[in-house]
């Protein structure tokens, strides 16, 4: 069982004093809630669990420990590991200050609609996991369990292609309707491991990048800018879409950008490899010249 191995690993690290905090998951309100847990004493390690509901990407929390004295251990699934890579590339965290415990991820499950007890095997995979091509951590100091075989992944751009084929007015109506729903709670931004600015442009009210009104225009401004700001850095963990209380299909925007980046500037998957440079962070002399 991964859970036992997790607890043992966390206990050992804390007992030896190698890390000051371990970030993992613990059970939440109901059996289908697993929620981020912060463990700083060996005896608390038994709170840790790994099950089908550990969807939260924990890498984001490393930003809270940017200035910590000691080392921080964090459990990483495939997507979390890619997020850590991105944070390392952005110099947001130092490799020597984090200890990564990799967990091959079988895919996370959706919470049941009614909350009634049922067999977790019968629950569908989360949308974000259905198109995941990297269930195994790509960076770690220690791996718990055996790597899982890569899943058959459907064409992850199928949804984007279908939208691209629509007429301009139809697209505009569709996005307008969706953006009008946005309540601007910023959950998408705050959960996103690519959103690592110390101060977000949208929080700098005095500069008026974004009006505080909730209307279509400001919501458009927010959503398009958010997408542009994570362009080339989105690791497709799908957390933004998962946490959106309004259920907006934010990955349709992120994937469009990823698709275009791949088409225009060569194949690139953020966070897969520390050596690859993000497409908007460098250039080539022979980049496509569509503007002249």
């Amino acid at each position, binding site marked *: 069982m991964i859970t036992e191995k997790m607890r043992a690993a966390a206990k050992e690290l804390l007992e030896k004093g190698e890390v000051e905090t371990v970030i993992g998951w613990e059970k939440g309100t109901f059996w289908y809630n697993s929620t981020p847990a912060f463990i700083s004493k060996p005896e608390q390690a038994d709170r840790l669990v790994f099950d089908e509901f550990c969807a939260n990407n924990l890498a984001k929390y490393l930003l809270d420990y940017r200035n910590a004295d000691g080392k921080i251990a964090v459990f990483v699934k495939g997507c979390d590991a890619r997020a850590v890579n991105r944070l390392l590339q952005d110099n947001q965290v130092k490799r020597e200050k984090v200890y990564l415990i990799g967990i091959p991820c079988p895919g996370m499950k959706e919470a049941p609609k009614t909350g009634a007890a049922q067999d977790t095997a019968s629950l569908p995979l989360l949308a974000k996991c259905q198109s995941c091509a990297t269930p195994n951590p790509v960076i770690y100091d220690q791996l718990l369990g055996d790597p899982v075989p890569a899943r058959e992944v459907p064409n992850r751009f199928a949804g*984007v292609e279908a*939208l*691209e084929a629509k007429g*301009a*007015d*139809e*697209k*505009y*109506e*569709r*996005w*307008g*309707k969706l953006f*009008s729903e946005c309540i601007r709670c910023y959950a998408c931004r705050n959960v996103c491991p690519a959103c690592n600015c110390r101060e977000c*442009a949208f929080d700098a009210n005095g500069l008026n*990048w974004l009006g505080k*009104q909730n*209307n*279509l*225009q400001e919501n*458009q*401004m927010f959503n*398009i*800018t958010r*997408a*542009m700001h994570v*362009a080339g850095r989105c690791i497709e963990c799908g957390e933004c879409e998962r946490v959106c209380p309004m259920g907006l299909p934010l990955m349709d*925007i992120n994937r*469009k*950008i990823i698709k*275009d*980046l791949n088409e*225009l*500037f060569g194949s690139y998957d953020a966070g897969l490899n520390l050596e690859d440079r993000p*497409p*908007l962070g460098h*250039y080539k*002399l022979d*980049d*496509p*010249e*569509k*503007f*002249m």
Partner: protein
Amino acid sequence: MSLNTEALPKSQEVTASPEAAPQPWEPRIVGFACNWCTYAGADLAGLSRLQYPPSIRLIRVPCSGRVNPQFVIRAFQRGADGVLVAGCHPGDCHYSTGNYFTRRRFLLMQRLLEYMGMDPRRFQARWISGSEGPKFQQVVTQMTEDIKALGPNRKMRDVE
């Protein structure tokens, strides 16, 4: 939410006195011009007495790489029918590499705007050097013609 034109502010009416005859619609283009090349190019066009449509409003920026995607969105929201980002030719950037990043960023953004339902012809980038007064004239004329054909922009407009 709709594309209904009635709900939009009639900006011409704000400036024109009520008695004046309705003016034929002229496109409004916001042009972000790099200080070192395009702005000098526009200057040269003026000095050379080259005629081009008065539809463009130039905003001088230090480099085309300074132009933030948010500038473009705001321009459309506040009434632009088209947005032009113009800077030095690749290789000529005063800061060596700024325009190479511009090239990547705005190609991506143009496609994203198209995905959101905007007409990509409304958002253009061009390389115009300080000696290319005639090119500046030609670009502005062409873009004005293109946008005239498209008609007033009703998308992303701020209705407040």
